[in-house]
């Protein structure tokens, strides 16, 4: 193991069909969240809403490197990976609206997107606490020998909390099939990395635990997929964890209540020029022609509007849902 990440291997270009699939997912996530922000402003979505806008290439590239049956676990900024892992736009939007048709019957909300049939083990609200949990899912896979891989996503802010280190330490000790993916979006809420950590590369934390690491930008979804595929293969074939830092940027504030005054408009605009969604769209337009991409966008638009309509028209959950979701079996308090 060297003290610098391995050199970037050449990444073969995606087929137009595959790029279409990746772009469509990224576009869907972007548009769903833009509509979610609008609904939030209208008071139709409550609580916290942490948008993923700008980071879509991470979730989509990561899930593209997986097989069906693999697991993902993430933080409260979870809409992107939920959609990328296969959750329907309807189930996500209805959950945001707190409706009974939501993925978690309206009990979880924005931060707690769960989708058992697609291996989405949740968005979790306590920074870093889900990292041991992800190691646990990977532990189960190794215990059963089922060949599944777990992806664990977290922000660079989580690298300072104890649960990150305990989860990583045990995953390394027991050689669990898990990939730890730091989505370094440069700010833990309003605090830049330079004021929260003694090093600027979070993948360096891998060194102390004796695991492989990687670090790259998320400008190109194809690069994300290929670089993460190497880590996923290492987990699946060698049962070895990897620590990856994917350098990304959120275009919106930490949550809807954050005007993001801790960074300049120029900085944000600079990152928007590297928007992975636009990049993918441009590549696709070159490959397929602008009309084909316009048609794809229109298709996404219809799906998003359908999801919003579905969420608005769905019923609220009844109080009868509370007891059976607190305990699995009967329980008399």
């Amino acid at each position, binding site marked *: 193991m060297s003290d610098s990440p391995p050199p970037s291997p050449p990444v073969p270009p995606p087929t137009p069909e595959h790029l279409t699939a990746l772009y469509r997912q990224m576009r869907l996530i972007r548009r769903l969240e833009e509509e979610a922000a609008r609904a939030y402003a209208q008071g139709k979505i409550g609580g916290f809403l942490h948008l993923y806008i700008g980071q879509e290439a991470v979730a989509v590239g990561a899930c593209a490197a997986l097989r069906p049956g693999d697991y993902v676990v993430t933080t409260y900024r979870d809409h992107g990976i939920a959609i990328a892992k296969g959750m329907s736009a309807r189930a996500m939007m209805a959950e945001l609206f707190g409706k009974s048709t939501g993925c978690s019957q309206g009990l979880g909300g924005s931060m707690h997107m769960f989708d058992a049939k697609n291996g989405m*083990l949740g968005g979790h609200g306590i920074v870093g606490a889900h990292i041991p949990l992800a190691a646990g*899912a990977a532990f189960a896979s190794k*215990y059963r020998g089922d060949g599944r891989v777990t992806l664990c996503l977290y922000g660079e802010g989580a690298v300072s909390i104890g649960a990150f280190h305990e989860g990583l330490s*045990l995953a390394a000790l027991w050689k669990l099939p898990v990939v730890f993916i730091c989505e370094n979006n440069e700010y833990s809420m309003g605090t830049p990395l330079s004021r929260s950590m003694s090093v600027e590369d979070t993948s360096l934390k891998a060194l102390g635990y004796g695991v492989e690491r990687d670090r790259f930008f998320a400008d190109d979804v194809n690069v994300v997929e290929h670089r993460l595929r190497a880590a996923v293969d290492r987990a699946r074939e060698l049962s070895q964890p990897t620590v990856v830092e994917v350098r990304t940027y959120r275009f919106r504030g930490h949550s809807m209540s954050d005007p993001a005054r801790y960074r300049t408009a120029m900085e944000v605009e600079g990152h928007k020029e590297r928007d992975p969604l636009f990049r993918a769209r441009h590549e696709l337009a070159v490959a397929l022609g602008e009309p084909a991409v316009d048609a794809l966008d229109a298709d996404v638009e219809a799906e998003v509007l359908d999801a919003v309509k579905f969420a608005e028209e769905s019923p609220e959950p009844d109080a009868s849902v509370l007891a059976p979701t607190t*305990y699995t079996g009967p329980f008399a308090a």
Partner: protein
Amino acid sequence: MRTLRYREALREAMIEEMERDDRVFLMGEEVGHYQGAYKVSEGMLERFGAKRVIDTPIAECGFAGIGVGAAMVGLRPIIEFMTWNFSAVAFDQILNGAAKIRQMSGGQFSCPIVFRGPNGSARQVGSQHSHSMEHFYATVPGLKVVAPSTPADAKGLMKAAIRDDDPVLFMESETLYSVKGEVPDDLDALELGKARVARQGAHCTIVTYSRMTHVALEAATALASDGIDVEIVDLRSLRPLDEETVVRSVKKTHRCVVVHEGWPYGGVGAEVADRVQRLAFDYLDAPILRVAQLDVPMPYNARLEQEVLPQAERVVATVKRVVTRGRG
């Protein structure tokens, strides 16, 4: 019927359930090669191998979280805390993980996990190692909390806890591990949430659990020589709480004293008192009193520790206050 120590009964339960279901495994500090800090898991590594009896480093948050994640995807972990005091650094995994997974996933995931270990005082181990953690955990919906007092209950309830589809926190006691008791040969899982009348009596109900059941029995013997006949309800399970058995007893005796380790502020005793006054108000002939630890951190000094802990003498005095009220 055989005579087993409490620790042997727990071990038997774990062994039987691990033989019955290969999804069950034991994980914790020193559970394997060391044979268990309190020898509860003695011989289990040799029996089941390192795949299913797993020694961990000192990382309670980490391995508690691993248990929760493994339970979510279908395994049935038994996570041992060397003592429940150390669960404080894993509290988040229990409070925000185990207790919440089912609800925040809208019922898509369950968390069939057992957290277990010795709880409460343990003879002069000082303030940081003497906590009665059940009071913290019993307030949390989504968790079940069990605290048996006898080897038979320890075995039957451990089997039930392992088979349960929800998180069960199993409170043992270092001072009970060597206690002997009769255990039926064919004992199967007991139902969680059922109290046991440990002694029949007429004049006052003592509601208690875990080690304090034995203290209450000692107090009962002393009270009997003074002509006071107490009934002892051993709760066994703190959440769910068998209020039916408690209320039935109080309706018979008309008096109630709650005895437990841990501080008097809030907690299980306050919960029992609330339920009894709500559900049996017209039957009560005296206020419900509690015998708890004194409201201070546990001192090291042996004499002071005994003073802080509930003792039979304090139980006797408290029962007498309750029983003699209204008799001039």
